[in-house]
């Protein structure tokens, strides 16, 4: 039998306390225990980037982080990316404007990786965009519009 653990994590600004099995990934905790199904699972072995969330502000792949490893830390999921009123974030707006989302499966990971990039580098170069999103795989939009969305979001943030 595996062990169970009580953990405390701050999810999208809200402190949560929950019990979890040791083997449960952060992705499964978010989706199954907390009902936050905006985090998508693609490959489940850390290759596709679909399940990217922010852990203490840094992008990580939630399928290869145990829920218990997030104990005491803050997690941002796509549900926490927009405004409290449900409005879209500037990054999400830019993804819409640039038609950077098609089936949407990779989009939550793309948006969060972009958000983290722009926090660190408000005006990234093309090489920096490619490096930051290189681990996020998209199978339908292609990467041209996604890159354009990041550039639009960066321009928008510069104008504010």
């Amino acid at each position, binding site marked *: *039998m*595996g*062990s169970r*653990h009580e953990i405390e994590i701050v999810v999208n600004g809200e402190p949560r306390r929950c019990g979890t*099995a*040791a*083997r449960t*990934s952060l992705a*499964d905790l978010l989706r199954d225990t907390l009902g936050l199904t905006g985090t998508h699972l693609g490959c*489940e*072995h*850390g290759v596709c*980037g679909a399940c*990217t969330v922010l*852990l203490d502000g*840094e*992008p*990580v*792949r939630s*399928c*290869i*982080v*145990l829920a*218990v*490893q997030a104990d005491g830390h803050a997690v941002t999921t796509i549900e926490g990316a927009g405004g409290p009123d449900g409005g879209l974030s500037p990054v999400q707006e830019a993804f819409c404007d640039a038609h950077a989302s098609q089936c949407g499966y990779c989009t939550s990971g793309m948006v969060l*990786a972009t958000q983290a990039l722009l926090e660190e580098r408000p005006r990234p170069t093309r090489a920096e965009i*490619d*490096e*930051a999103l*290189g*681990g996020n795989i998209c199978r339908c939009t292609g990467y041209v519009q996604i890159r354009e969305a990041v550039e639009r979001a960066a321009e928008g943030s510069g104008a504010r």
Partner: protein
Amino acid sequence: MKPVDFELHRPATTAEAVALLAEHAPEAKVLAGGQSLLPLLNFRLARPEHLVDLGRIAALAELRRTRDELVVGAMVRQARAERSPAVAADAPLLAAAFPNIAHPPIRNRGTVGGSLAHADPAAELPAVARALDAVLVAAGPAGRREIAARDFFQANLMTVLEADELLVEIRFPRAAPGTGASFQEVGRRSGDFALVGVAAQVTVRDGVVEEARVCVTGVAPTPHRAAEAEEPLTGRPLTEARLAAAADALRAAIDPSGDLHAPGEYRRDVAGTLAVRAVAQAHRRATEHAAAAA
């Protein structure tokens, strides 16, 4: 794609972690950043009954300098070391290697010690440790021992660490003035494991290569320290002819196996080409560094 059930232990000190490993070895695995272990668990290629999570042991996440060494705790995250000015100054080869490791989200979690203890034959950090003659410090029930990088890696995914031992820190010699480094890698896509990677560090004094260190990943079960390529470069100024001789010597010394990604012949050829690029870039940086220090 879910791991089998296991018992997770979360020790607060290295001593507790070692005691847990001693109690549960060989059914226990060490969890560092988890970026290699968790995929193995998800695929059920590894089915440990116990995991010992090092995430709460603050002492393992220290990064410090002594007079002669840069000491990197086993749990220092790769992204943190990548951004560290101390690493850039004291171990420029280590700094040069990080951008080649997977993608930023992996480096945010992955640790320096985890990559070394995992010992993937295509990984970057084992080649760096071997190139720099790093000392790896392990803690076990009988206390601590220091292991030279040349003795640490035994085979594909195998090191000399015992089942009840823990890698606690890695000591890199601080780079001398006039030192430059480069890590060159070829993979199928950016972020993939290397087909071949070459780590090079060069120290220049008065226009002469005082020391050249070259180590290759992806061409053997353990990192290949290319003494045969270092020898023709050392003690004289760098020339294109000497670079070519070093590359030829390296190609002659290795016998990489092929797989579905690339035949062995390709890896052999590319290793020489990457060695030329890596040594040349390391030499340029060393020359700049020497000029800036003068």
